[in-house]
């Protein structure tokens, strides 16, 4: 069975600074990987997704993520954080050939200080 770990429950960065949110997955086969963002009182919104191909994927609002099979990781990055990025970020995995169910990490709360 697949699993996802987000080791940082909370990350605080200054506006304009760079960001990395960590995600580690466990799955023997070929995973599909996702980053979602959740703003207060809203549903999850997809930031970006990976399926086999280029390991670096670009998403919305300047986010990107890099897949590493050797490290079983899919870390999210942004070069310059904006105050509007303050939200909860979830990493998730789904499996090829499955019923499209998503397995989520625990989430990372991103706080942005001026």
């Amino acid at each position, binding site marked *: 069975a697949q699993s*996802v770990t987000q080791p940082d429950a909370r990350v605080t960065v200054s506006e304009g600074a760079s960001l990395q949110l960590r995600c580690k997955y466990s799955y023997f086969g070929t995973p*599909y990987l996702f980053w*979602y963002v959740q703003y207060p*009182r*809203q*549903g*999850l*919104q*997809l930031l970006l*997704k990976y*399926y086999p191909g280029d390991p670096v994927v670009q998403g919305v609002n300047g986010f990107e993520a890099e897949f590493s099979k050797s490290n079983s990781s899919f870390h999210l990055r942004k070069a310059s954080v904006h105050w509007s990025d303050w939200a909860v970020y*979830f990493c998730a995995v*789904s499996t*090829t*050939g*499955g*019923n*499209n*169910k*998503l*397995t*989520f*990490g*625990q*989430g990372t709360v991103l706080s942005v200080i001026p």
Partner: protein
Amino acid sequence: GPKVLQIPSHQIIDMGQMVTLNCDPVSNHLYFYWYKQILGQQMEFLVNFYNGKVMEKSKLFKDQFSVERPDGSYFTLKIQPTALEDSAVYFCASSLGLGGLYNYAEQFFGPGTRLTVL
């Protein structure tokens, strides 16, 4: 972008009562999902549903749970009877397809229904 609606946003009920959570999925989507998030914990898959049938359910989907989507109306999650451990936020999602061309499998999520069982 496409939106999934959930009604109500918050429901408070007494233990043992029945509750129905409603989801209005994206209009042309064919696959529907429920996820459960207990406060402070990760979101967990409950069930997915296609063409009137449950495709897969997790161990969290107890016998007291049921899902349906009668005649293209709301996709519903019913819990009867409720228990204290059912208190959580329930998220509905929908997708156009599964796998293959992966854009079709992208799940769109609603804002969640917070269920409080007293």
